[in-house]
C-alpha cells in the first residue's frame, strides 16, 4: 500500500494554467490518487478533465459518485457539487449549500480527506483569489498528513497560497516547476525516500 493514498489539490483563479504546468510532469507510475477541486461557474459543463488530460501521462476524469480512488488516476470535481472522500476510499458528491460562496469547496474536500484517510493524505493549495483550502490544509496536517503550497510570488493570484500558509505554517512552499518532482519523492515507498524528510 502506498504511503499516501491521495493527493488533494485546490485551485481557483489561474487554476487551469497552474495545473497544466505540473500534472504532465508526473510519472505514469505515480503511486497515489489525485483529487482536484477547482472553483468553476455552476451551470456549465466542465471541460476541465479533458483539458488536463492533454499531455498528462495519468488518466484524468471527472469524478463519479461512489467511485473508488485508484492510484495513478486524477479525479476532477464536477461544477456545482461538493466532492468528498469517504473512509472506505471512495468519492462522494453532495449538493449541500456552497461553503463561503464556493461549491465545490476546497475545504470540504480537504477536511473530508483528513477525516477519512488521516495521515495518508497530501494537501496542495495552488493559485487563487480567496482563502478556500486554508482550514482544510490545517486539518490535513493535524491528522498527520503533509501540506504543500505554491510559492505565492509566482502564483497568478497569491491570496489563496498566502492564506494557506497563514493557517498552516507547517506547509512546504514549492514552485510549480518542482511540484511534480517533490510529490514523486514524497510518495515513494519509504526505502527510497531519503531526500525529503517528514517534519516531526
Amino acid at each position, binding site marked *: 500500500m502506498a504511503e499516501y493514498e491521495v493527493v488533494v489539490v485546490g485551485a481557483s483563479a489561474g487554476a487551469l494554467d497552474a495545473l497544466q504546468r505540473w500534472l504532465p510532469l508526473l510519472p505514469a507510475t505515480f503511486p497515489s490518487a489525485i483529487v482536484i477541486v477547482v472553483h468553476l461557474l455552476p451551470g456549465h459543463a466542465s471541460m476541465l478533465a479533458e483539458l488536463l488530460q492533454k499531455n498528462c501521462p495519468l488518466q484524468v476524469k471527472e469524478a*463519479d*459518485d*461512489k467511485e473508488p480512488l485508484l492510484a495513478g488516476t486524477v479525479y476532477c470535481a*464536477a461544477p456545482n*457539487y*461538493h466532492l*468528498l*472522500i*469517504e*473512509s472506505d476510499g471512495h468519492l*462522494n*458528491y*453532495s*449538493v*449541500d*449549500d456552497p461553503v463561503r460562496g464556493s461549491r465545490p469547496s476546497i475545504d*470540504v474536500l480537504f*477536511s*473530508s480527506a*483528513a*477525516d*477519512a484517510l*488521516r495521515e495518508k493524505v497530501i494537501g496542495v493549495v495552488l493559485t487563487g483569489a480567496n482563502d478556500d483550502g486554508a*482550514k482544510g490544509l*490545517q*486539518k490535513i496536517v*493535524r*491528522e498527520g498528513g503533509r501540506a504543500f503550497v505554491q510559492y505565492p510570488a509566482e502564483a497568478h493570484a497569491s491570496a489563496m497560497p498566502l492564506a494557506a500558509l497563514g493557517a498552516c505554517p507547517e506547509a512546504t512552499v514549492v514552485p510549480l516547476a518542482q511540484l511534480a518532482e517533490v510529490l514523486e519523492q514524497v510518495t515513494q515507498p519509504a526505502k527510497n525516500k531519503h531526500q525529503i524528510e517528514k517534519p516531526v
Partner: protein
Amino acid sequence: MDFENSFEEQRAQDSEFELDLLIQTIFHRYQYDFSGYSRASLKRRLIRACEIRGCASFSQLQHTILHDTPPFDSLLDIITVRVSDLFRDPHYFKAFRELVVPQLRTYPSINLWVAGCATGEEAISLAIILREEGLESRSTVYATDINANVLKQAKRGVYTFEQIKNFSENYLAAGGTHSLSDYYTTGYNAAKMNRDLLDRIVFSEHNLVSDGSFAEMQFISCRNVLIYFGVELQARAIALFEESLCRRGFLGLGSKESLQRVPQNQRFVCLDQTQKLYQKGGVVDHGRV
C-alpha cells in the same frame, strides 16, 4: 465558541466513534435510520446541527437528544433538507420532454413520482410540462419526502422573486412553450404557484430507507438524493424504483448519479447518458411491445 474549531481539535477517530453513537441514538429515539447514509456528508450536516444547538461535540448533541428529547423536526431539517430550483438542470427537463413524454402519451393514465421532492420545485416543473403537453388530465404527480416540514412548504408553492427570476431562465432553457409567469401570481414580494397546478400534485411523507412501493409508476425522478446514500442504500432505493415502475417505465437521476454501481444495472437501459434518463427492461423487451 468556534464550533468548527472544537471539532477540528478533536482527533478524527474519536469523533467518528461519537458519530456512530449519535446515529444510533437518533434511530433509537426517533426511528429514523441514517446508518446507511454517505458518512462524510452526514457528518458535515451533524456538525452543523451541533453548531445550531450549541453543542461542542456529537456526545453533547446525543446527550440533549437522550435527556431533553427536543422535537426532531429541526434536526431532521438540518440532516435532510436540500435546496432546489424550478427546472434545475434545464436540459434534464428538455430530455424528459423529448424522450419520455412521447411514450407517456401511450398510457391511458400516467403516474409520476418525484422521490425526495424537498420543497416541491421538481414536481411543479413536471406538472407544468404535463400541462403544456396536454397530458395533465390523465396524470398524477406523487411528490414524497422524508421530511414533513418541507412538504408543508412545498404545498404552499410560494417562492421569492429572486428565485423566480432564475426559474424563468431555466424554464425557457428547458423548452417551455409559454411564459413561466402564466403559472404563478405575485404579491408581497413573492410568487405563488397557481392552485390548479399544485392540486395536480399529491404530496406525501415517504422514507426511501424504510418505506415500500405505493403505486405503479410510469416515470420516477429521484435527483441528488442517492448521492447522500451509501451503496447498499442506493441499491435498496433502486430496487424500490424497479418494483414500482411499470414495464418499460422511466427513471431519471441527478447528473452525477448513475446505476453503474448497483446490481440492477443490467435491467435498465440508459436513454440519455448526460441527463441520466433510464428505461426499465428496455432492451430485454425490445420488439415485444
